[in-house]
């Protein structure tokens, strides 16, 4: 726990000591605004809710979270600091969790800074703030899932660009398998049970579940398992690939 906190704080200060966190946050906010107001037709819809805002999050995360995740382990492997870190008396899982949490906090912080849009809908109308709160939670959990995938991909490659591409690709896969278009196509030639099983694996399906304002235990569990599973995979990959 002590070692994990130390790693998390070190990572956090590293995000803010370099332009990384600032660039991430600014780009995240600018893109969010652009997507919501121009592509999402925030005003034109005439509804006081944040559906268009949250609707773009999976796609934003797909490359922004991949970008922040790509350096998680790849950089340490390349520069030799992995050796410095792992020869300190620290358990691998503490290191994995500490790094993940720091990145997750940065993303969460960026998400919190979108609060003006929440103020805007509350000014314009009377939205269901419970649904908005649930959506924020769901969005953060979803970011955590992409981040955990990225953590594993970053551990698998010492090359950050490769880590980025792999993360975006795997994240994309986990996103689109929940899309109605994809599922409809699958219904044609796969048994219904399998299509439902595939849909149940999708980040999108579970996020939308939470974003509707239904805090279903199954959705929460999905994200916990997803994050936990990919982080365990991260630890395994690091252990296997330390030498290379």
């Amino acid at each position: 726990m002590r070692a994990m906190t130390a790693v998390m704080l070190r990572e956090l200060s590293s995000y803010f000591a370099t332009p990384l966190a600032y660039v991430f946050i600014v780009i995240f906010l600018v893109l969010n605004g652009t997507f919501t107001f121009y592509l999402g037709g925030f005003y034109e819809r005439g509804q006081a809710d944040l559906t268009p805002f949250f609707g773009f999050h999976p796609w934003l995360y797909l490359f922004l979270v991949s970008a922040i995740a790509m350096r998680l382990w790849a950089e340490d492997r390349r520069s030799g600091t992995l050796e410095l870190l792992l020869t300190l008396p620290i358990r691998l899982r503490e290191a994995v969790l500490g790094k993940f949490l720091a990145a997750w906090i940065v993303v969460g912080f960026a998400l919190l800074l979108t609060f003006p849009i929440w103020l805007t809908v509350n000014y314009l109308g009377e939205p269901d703030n419970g649904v908005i709160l649930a959506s924020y939670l769901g969005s953060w959990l979803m970011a955590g899932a992409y981040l955990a995938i990225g953590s594993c991909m970053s551990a698998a490659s010492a090359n950050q660009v490769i880590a980025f591409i792999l993360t975006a690709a795997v994240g994309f896969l986990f996103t689109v398998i929940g899309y109605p278009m994809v599922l409809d196509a699958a219904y044609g030639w796969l048994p219904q049970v399998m299509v439902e099983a595939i849909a149940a694996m999708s980040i999108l399906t579970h996020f939308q579940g939470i974003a509707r304002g239904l805090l279903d235990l199954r959705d929460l569990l999905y994200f916990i398992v997803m994050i936990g599973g990919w982080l365990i995979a991260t630890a395994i990959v690091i252990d296997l690939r330390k030498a290379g």
Partner: protein
Amino acid sequence: MKIEIEHLSRRFGSMIAVDDLSFEVNAGEVLGFLGPNGAGKTTTMKIIAGFLAASSGRVRVGEHDVGRSPLAVKRIVGYLPEGAPAWPDMTPIGLLHFAARVRGMTLAAREHRIGLLVEQLALREVLLRPVETLSKGFRRRVGLALALLHDPAVLILDEPTDGLDPNQKRQVRELIRSLSRDKIVVISTHILEEVEAVCTRAVIIRRGRLVADDTPDALAARSRWHGAIGLRLAEPVAAEAFNGLDGVVDVEEAGRDGRAWTLFIAPKAQGGAAVDKVRARLAASGSSVRELWLHRGRLEEVFHELTLEPTEAA
């Protein structure tokens, strides 16, 4: 406290980096770990430090097996990885506090130790500068401070003086010497004078296998330079002046003016008697000796012979 390495092997794919290596290091010893590049020094040190797992064999540090309880080993080992890596955007003070926090040191203990090391390693002027802006020498010293942070009983230093200038090298050697009374220190190095300066024992490996394990003096004594007589004369002589001297196996001119010579002596004939004979011969031929000294032997030459690749020898 001791380090025991038993039948240690490590493979990377089909490449064997460490091949059935066994030796022990006891408290109070400063072990110089030598070998040409790629001989397996760094791999062995990474295994002792708990970063890499062994393919077979085992390593014990004190009462802990590195494979079974790596955490316990990491608590008592201070390790300087090859190249002294550090996060480039961190400052030395940030790095030291981070490592101390991971090691569970209290704030008071942290500040005391860090203050001490900053003095010992002369880091004060760079404490607040990002590591990426530091010179190689400072980086190496920051790495040393990280390794020494918790006053470890075992120090594993992979090329501790690489990149330091002669004065800094000397400081670090003095530091290592001052540490070593009750500790185990293992240093890898290419610099053979360093082994003679700080090590009480030298282990030489080649292609992952142990080829020599002895004190630096005993190793140096294996060279043909051991017991050789160095001479400086007032007047030039020719090599023939030494012909027929008992025990002299070879004569080499050491200078260019015919005044300085090295006489290599057969192992059995080494010592005072050989010196007396040389003196007598020179006195008889009328040359006066300005200086005469005995060579200790050259570690460099022994190292070269022990680690020469078969292909190069052929």
